[in-house]
Structures are given as C-alpha cells and as structure tokens.
C-alpha cells in the first residue's frame, strides 16, 4: 500500500530501465499499435501499392478483400473516385501523425515554457499566464479552433499552429502545479544556497523533473489532437484535399457509411487504433514515470 523508503524513487532512470524489462501486456499492445502507423508513415512512399491520388472512376467503390466484388490488387478496396484505400490510408498516416506530433511539439513547447515561468516566478508572471490560461480554458478549444480556422485558410501549417495554440493550456496548468511542488524541494533550496542562478535552476533542476509529466501529457495530447483533427474535418476545417489525412477520409466517407462502409470505417479504425496505442502507452508511461500524476 505505502511504499517504504527503501524503494527507489519514482521516475529515476534505474526504475525506468527496470520497468522496461517487464513491460505489461497493454503497453506492448500500445507499442505495436503505434509502431505500425509510425513505420507506415515514415516509409509511405516506398510501401504504397498505388498512387493515392490516381483517380479512375471505372474502378470506384471496390470493397476490401474478403468481401464480394473485391479485387486482390486493391487489398482494402477503393473509394468513390476509384483511389486505392490502402495507399490513401498509408499516405494519410503521414499527415495525421504529423499534425499530432507537430501540434504537440508546439503546444508542449509553449505550455512547458508558460508552466515553468508561472510556477517558478509566481506573482505577476503567474497571474498573467494563469489568467490567459483561464480565459482559454473557458472558451472550449474546438470553438476557438473553429473561429480561427474560419479566418485563416485551413491547411497543414495552420492546423498545426492552431492546435498548438489551443492545446498548450493543459500543459501550462499541469506543469505549473508540478513546478510549484518541485521548487519547494530541498535540492532547489540547496542550489539557491550556493547561489545558482534562477535560469540554471529552472533548466537544470526543475525542467528535468517535470519531464515525466511532460511526456505523459504529450502522449495524451497527441491522441487528443488526432481526434480533434477528425472533428475539424467533419466541420470542414481540417486538412483539405489533395492532402489526405485519416480524419479527412473518415469525414468524406461519411455519406457512404451505409453503402460503402469501408470508406469511413477503415480510417476510423486507423484513428481508433493509433489513439488506443498512444493512450495505452501513455497509461504505462504514467505508471512508470510518475505514479503521482493521477489525472
């Protein structure tokens, strides 16, 4: 129940290394679910069986393999314009993952900086940042995105920027809370005792110690962003053709759910699988890196 003092502290490298040796089953599932799309995304140009943009109305809506009317040349069938689903899914993985990863990089960087500054310096800096965080939290994120994307024309860069700008608050809040706790730890006090500068304390002492939280938050954010991207596509604000993303495929296939289920179900599965993978991995990272990060 209570861990006694003898155990190594959470989040220490040895603990992580040890944990790596006995990774629980769900985490392994998670990794597999992630490695596949990541691999696919990286090697997309080499593994796509067809040109994902090649339109050929004559072979539109071929169902995926085991189903009646399928064509072995198109393992996962074709879409309404006769494009190969498999190739499009592979192509789409790049943008979906890229949006997720870049969005998180941006959100994480801003959020980390804001959280560190607010938590460490307190007072005015804290008040200013936290009021902004409050404000952004009070406006539902997707609403903000909706308004922004109503202005700037949607596209990969815009999407990343917007998702980054709306997701950083989560980081800022959590990291600030974490910093508030860490800055009271004795090693920070010790560093101050012999005159280490604030910058150095922030960089060398505090930042490394919020990393577990940061990493766990990041996994969750990637998942959130991938899902948000598909919602945005639904509202017409996501990635736009000729670019392909899973969210776009999912939404543009939605009219076909009853007639050609694979158009939206396959990208839906791809999203669900990847998000599942990320969340499973995130759960495990949370347990491994920081058992205190409850939420």
């Amino acid at each position, binding site marked *: 129940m209570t861990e006694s003092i003898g155990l190594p502290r959470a989040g220490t*490298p040895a603990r992580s290394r040890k944990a790596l040796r006995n990774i629980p089953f769900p985490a392994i599932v998670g990794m597999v679910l992630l490695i596949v799309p990541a691999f696919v995304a990286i090697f997309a140009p080499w593994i796509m069986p067809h040109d994902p943009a090649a339109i050929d109305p004559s072979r539109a809506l071929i169902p995926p393999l085991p189903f009646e009317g399928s064509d072995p040349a198109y393992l996962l069938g074709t879409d309404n314009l006769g494009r190969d689903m498999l190739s499009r899914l592979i192509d789409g993985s790049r943008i979906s993952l890229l949006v997720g990863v870049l969005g998180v990089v941006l959100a994480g960087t801003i959020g980390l900086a804001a959280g560190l500054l607010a938590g460490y310096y307190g007072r005015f800096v804290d008040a200013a940042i936290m009021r902004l965080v409050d404000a952004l939290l009070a406006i539902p994120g997707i609403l903000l995105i909706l308004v922004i994307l109503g202005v700037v024309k949607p596209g990969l860069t815009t999407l990343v920027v917007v998702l980054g700008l709306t997701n950083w608050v989560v980081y800022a809040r959590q990291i600030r809370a974490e910093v508030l706790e860490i800055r009271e730890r004795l*090693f920070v006090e*010790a560093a101050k*005792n*012999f005159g280490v500068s604030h910058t150095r304390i922030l960089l060398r002492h505090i930042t490394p*110690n919020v990393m577990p939280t940061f990493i766990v938050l990041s996994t969750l954010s990637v998942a959130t962003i991938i899902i948000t991207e598909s919602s945005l596509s639904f509202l017409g604000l996501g990635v736009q053709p000729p670019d392909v993303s899973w969210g776009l495929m999912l939404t543009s296939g939605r009219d076909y759910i009853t007639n050609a289920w694979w158009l939206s179900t396959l990208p839906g599965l791809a999203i669900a699988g990847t998000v599942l993978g990320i969340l499973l991995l995130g759960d495990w990272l949370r347990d491994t890196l920081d058992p205190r990060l409850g939420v």
Partner: protein
Amino acid sequence: MTTDTALPGTASDAAVRVTALCKTFRVADGFFGRKKDFAAVRDVGLSVPKGATLGIIGESGSGKTTVARMLAGLLRPTSGDILITGAPVFDAKGRTTAAGRTAAQMVFQDPYSALNPRMNVRSILAEPLTVAPRASRQEIARRVAELTDQVGMAASALEKYPHEFSGGQRQRLVIARALARKPQVLICDEPVSALDVSIQSQILNLLKDLQEEMGLTYVFIGHGLESVHFMSDRISVMYKGAVVEQGTADDILHRPGHEYTRRLIESSRAQPFKTR
C-alpha cells in the same frame, strides 16, 4: 533559566552572530479568511564561536528550520541581523550577499529530496563550483574527488544517480556538496532524523571528524536530545518561535529550566513505565 555563561572568545570572532532575529509569515487565517501575520521566529539571538557547535532543540513548529534558512541566506528575515564570520548575510535591501551565499551552507533533514534525482553525483558536487567565481575544469575535478574522499565515498560513486544510494550515503553526498565552497559554517537541520538508527552514528561521527579537520562551526538542529547533546557545546531551546533557554550542553541536560526541556529529558531517560 541557565545563566548565559560566555564561552571563550569575544564577540568579534564569533562565527555566527544573530541579534534580534524575527520572521513573520503572512498566512491565511482559518479556511476562508484573510491573511494574517504569524510570527514564526521572535527575537532570537545566537552567538557561536568559531569551531564550536551550537545545538538547537525545540518541538515541531518552534521555528528551528526557519532560523536555519535565514542563517543560510535562503529566507529574508523580517528584522534582525545575521553576521557570519563578521559579514552580514543580507544587505540593506534584504538581498543575500555574496558572503552570505558562501560562508554558511546547509545540510538538510531529508537526504531523499535534497539531491536532484536527475543529476549524477559528479554534477551534483560540481554545481556549487560552477557558480561565480567559477573554478576551472581541472580545479572542479580535483575538488569533486577530494570531497568524495572526505565524506568517505568511493570515486566510483561519481557516475551514479542519487537513487542508487542509501539514505546514509545520500546524506554524505549532501554534506560533501555543502562543503564544496569551503564554508566556515555548516547549518545542519536535523541531518540524521530520516536515517536508520545504525546509520545515524556514522553521520554524526563524520560531522564531528570534519569539524575537527577543517575547524568548521556548526549550528546543529535536532529534536532528539541525545544527538544534539552529543554534537553540541552549547544548546539553545526554542519554543513557539523564541529561544527560551540556552546554556552549555551539560547545563541544559542537568539543570533544565524550561518545562519543555524537562519533558524532553524525561522522555529520553528511558525509565520503564510504571503501572498506575
């Protein structure tokens, strides 16, 4: 109350000299209330001659740590003066002076949180030396090796991380780090409370040895009477933020004046309970 028998030496060569030290915190009053002032340390005066040890005892919350942090320049006093080896720890504006940062170093109660878990021992020990005036690379390496040796740790420890050490070993590292900039005064805030019984004496011995070797001055805080008595020449007893009595270690032990001191001694005297 015991008489304040002066120890050898005059005020000028006192390593630590504290006069009329006060610290007031603004705290929330009750659960919903407004802020109010809380005097954690009230009019404390201390004087420790060079090379001697002053023990401070007192119940939990009596202000011991608060005094220690002010001595180490970590907390700005509300009023009062602190001189370490004759130099003020805080300047007129309440900022910690350079002397205040070097002359007194702190050894903390909890060795588990006093070391950054994400830095290896080498960088932990080197860090104080990288602060201006910055030592050269070779100088740092030399000092780090010397420090490890001084606290009785093997050189192989340098590449390890704090969690790979037991509590006692960590406390040695904390002490080594405190010594890095060659301070004259060490402020030890309950340095052995978190340690196993069998380890406590190792650390106490180490502190004694170091004091002898380097002529250090200690302010030694504890709430167990035994260890404070063992370490100290003089003892101050704190109660609710104020020093209620002070005297030589033996005086305090044998002729306790304050009620709290008496209870403390009684509970340490280990007489079997008698059935009523």
